[in-house]
C-alpha cells in the first residue's frame, strides 16, 4: 500500500511488532503536531511491549503466567481488544483464532514456551472475560495467545485516536504496509488513496476515517520437505496455509484491529461469510491473478 501525499508533511516512523510503522501528517503547519505524533508513535511502541510474545517482560507473557490462576485486571483498551478478537473468532467460526500460538510455535514462527499440543484444538472458548470487573482469566492451564493477526491494527487504532484527541484532522498511519488508517483527508482530496498491491491494476481504496488491512500467504514463511508454508495459520486444519497459489484478502472498515482480524479470517476461509459486517468492504484474490471485490456472502476466490 502506498499513501498519496505531497507537499509539506511531518513524517515519523518506528519499529514495532517486527515491522516498520509510519505516520504522515500533511500540511505546512504539520510541525506543530510533532508532540501529538510522537505520542501516537509511543502508543504503538507501548502496544508492542504489551503484546509481543518475544519479550519475557511483555504483558502478554505476564497473562500467560498467571491468568489460569487468577483473573488479571486490564485497561479498557486491552479489554476491548479481547472483546473484538473473540467476536471475530465467533463470527468467522474460528477462521480467526487468537489461540493458535502452539501451532506457530510448532512450525517455528513463535518462541517455544512448552510442548506443542499436537493436533490443534481452539481454546478461545477458555478465554474468560468479565466486563463487570474488567478482568481476563484463562479457563485452562497452558493457554497461549498470539495477537499477530490483530495487534498491529489495535496499535494503529490507539495511535489514530490519540491524534484525533490532540486536534490532528488529517493523517495517514500504517504498520508494515499491511494495515493502515486514514484519518480525515489530505487537503482537496476525498480521502487517502491506498493501492491494495504493487501491480498496475490493483484496486485502490479511499480511506476517510477508516482502515484497511491486507493479509496474504506470502511474507514470512517456512519451508519443509520442499513445500512452502505461510506464517498464517488455518485453525481448522491446525497448520499453516500453504504458500503455493498464494492467496490474499483485504478488508476496509471503521476499525483497523477488526479489519486486521477479518482479513486473516477471510484469507483462511477463502470467502466472505454472512457474518461479515454489512457496511464493510472485502476483496479476495491470488497474488498472480488479481483481485475480486467480494461484497456478497460466500464469494468464491477467483482462480489464478
Amino acid at each position, binding site marked *: 500500500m502506498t499513501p498519496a501525499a505531497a507537499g509539506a508533511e511531518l513524517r515519523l516512523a518506528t519499529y514495532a511488532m517486527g515491522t516498520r510503522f509510519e505516520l504522515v501528517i500533511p500540511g505546512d503547519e504539520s510541525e506543530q503536531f510533532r508532540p501529538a505524533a510522537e505520542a501516537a508513535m509511543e502508543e504503538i511502541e507501548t502496544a508492542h511491549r504489551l503484546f509481543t510474545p518475544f519479550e519475557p*517482560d511483555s504483558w502478554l507473557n505476564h497473562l500467560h503466567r498467571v491468568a489460569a490462576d487468577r483473573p488479571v485486571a*486490564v485497561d479498557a483498551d486491552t479489554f476491548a481488544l479481547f472483546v473484538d478478537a473473540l467476536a471475530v473468532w465467533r463470527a468467522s467460526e474460528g477462521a480467526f483464532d487468537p489461540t493458535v500460538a502452539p501451532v506457530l510455535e510448532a512450525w517455528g514462527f513463535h518462541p517455544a514456551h512448552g510442548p506443542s499440543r499436537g493436533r490443534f484444538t481452539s481454546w478461545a472458548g477458555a478465554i474468560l472475560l468479565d466486563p463487570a470487573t474488567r478482568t481476563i482469566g484463562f479457563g485452562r492451564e497452558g493457554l497461549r495467545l498470539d495477537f499477530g493477526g490483530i495487534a498491529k491494527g489495535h496499535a494503529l487504532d490507539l495511535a489514530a485516536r490519540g491524534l484525533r484527541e*490532540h486536534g490532528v484532522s488529517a493523517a495517514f498511519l500504517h504498520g508494515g504496509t499491511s494495515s493502515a488508517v486514514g484519518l480525515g483527508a489530505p487537503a482537496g482530496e476525498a480521502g487517502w488513496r491506498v493501492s491494495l498491491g504493487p501491480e498496475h491494476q490493483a484496486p485502490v481504496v479511499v480511506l476517510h476515517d477508516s482502515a484497511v488491512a491486507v493479509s496474504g500467504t506470502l511474507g514470512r514463511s517456512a519451508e519443509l520437505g520442499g513445500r512452502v508454508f505461510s506464517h498464517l495459520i488455518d485453525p481448522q486444519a491446525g497448520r499453516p496455509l500453504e504458500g503455493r497459489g498464494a492467496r490474499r484478502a483485504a478488508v476496509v472498515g471503521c476499525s483497523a484491529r477488526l479489519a486486521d482480524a477479518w482479513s486473516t479470517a477471510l484469507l483462511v476461509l477463502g470467502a466472505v461469510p454472512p457474518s461479515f459486517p454489512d457496511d464493510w468492504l472485502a476483496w479476495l484474490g491470488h497474488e498472480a491473478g488479481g483481485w475480486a471485490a467480494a461484497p456478497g456472502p460466500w464469494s468464491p476466490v477467483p482462480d489464478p
Partner: protein
Amino acid sequence: MQRRTFVVQTAGSLAGIALLPDRSATGPRWLPEPKAVALVGVGRQGRAIVAELLKIDGAKLVALCDIHPARVKAGLERAAGIEGFQDHRSLLDKRRDLDAVIVATPTHLHPGIVTDALQAGRHVYCEAPLAHTLEDAKAIAAAAQRSNRIFMAGFQGRSNPVYQLARTFARTDAVRSLVSMYAQYHREASWRFPAANAVEDKTANWRLDPEVSLGLAGEVGAQQFDVVQWFKGGRPARITGRGAVLFHQDGRKVPDTVQADLVWPDHATLHFEATLANSFGGQHEVLHGVNGAIKLAWTHGWMFKEADAPTLGWEVYALRQQFHSDEGIILIAEATKLAAQGQLKAGVGLPYSPLYYALGDFLKSVTFPNVPVPCTAADGLRATALGILANRAIVTGETVEVPEF
C-alpha cells in the same frame, strides 16, 4: 549441552556473560492482603505505574489524581473501579482508606504532595528524582525520616534483580575495582508533549522549562548516577559538564544533548551522555573493573571477563551466545536446576519491568514494615543531589563540588 561448549572462546575477545538472577527473585509479586493505593500524577510515568500495579496481585488502585481533567478521565479507563481527583488534598481528605500514595507528578511538584501524604499518615513512593532543588530534596528526606511511614524513592536500579546480581560481581573479585564507568540515554524524541493551550503547555512541558527542569542529567541520568554510586560505594568528588541544543531548534533553552563527568576521589570517572537526537544504543551503563566489565541495560545484563581473570564456578553452567564481536556467556543463577529441567534459555531477560520490581518492593515493605525498602529517603536524596549538581555543571559550565548529604 556439552561441557566443551562452555570452554570454547574466541581468541582475542572478551567473554560476555549475561547476568541473570535467581528466578525466585524475578517472579510475580503478590501481597498476602490487598493494599489500597492512590496515584498522584497521571502523565506518561503515571500511566506506566498503573499498568504495573495491575500486574501485582493485591495492589488495589482505588484512586488517581491529576490537575488535568483529561488525564484523570484517561486514567480512569486504565483501571476499573477507581475514583478520580484533581486535587491531592481532596484525595487525602476523602479517601481515608488509603494505605499508600504514589507520587508521579512533575519533579518540582513532589515536595508538597509527599509531605501532605506523609502527614496524612500514608506510606509514600516518590518518583525519581525527588525534587528539583537541593532544599526541596532535603525537605522531603527530612519529612520521610520524621514520619513513621514507609518512604521509598523511585530509583529503580536498586530493586532490579539484574542490577542486584550485577552489584555482587562489581563488588567482588569477578570485576574488582571499578576504574571507569559509562552511562548513556539516547532517544530520538522532542521531549515535548501535546497541549491544548498555553496554560496546559506550561504544565505539560515542564521538562523544557529551565526554571524547574533538571534537564537530561537530572531527570534521566540521576537514575544511572544512583546505580554507579550504589555499585561503587561513596559519592563522586566533583562534576563537570556541557550541553547544547543541537537538534530541536524550537526555541527551547534546555539542552537536547549533554555530557557530564562525575569524578570519584580515586579519580575513577563516570562519563554520562544523553541526547534527544539519536536513539542508537538506547539507555545502558558499562562499568569497567580490573578483572572484567559489566554492561547493564535495565532488563538485561552481561559480564565480560578479562582472559586472565579468575575462573568462576558458575561459568560451567552458562549458556554462550555471540555478543557483538565477542563470544558471550549467558549466566543463569540456579543454572544447575534449570539445566536439569532443560530450561536454561527460559530465563534470559527479566520477566517484568524494573518499575514493576520497584513498586513490588515498596508494597512489600508497606505490608511487612520490618522489610527495608531498597531505596531510602537518604539514598534518594544522594542520587537526586547528583542529578541536580550534574545539571548545574552542564548549565553553568563550571566544575561543581559534591558535598556530603
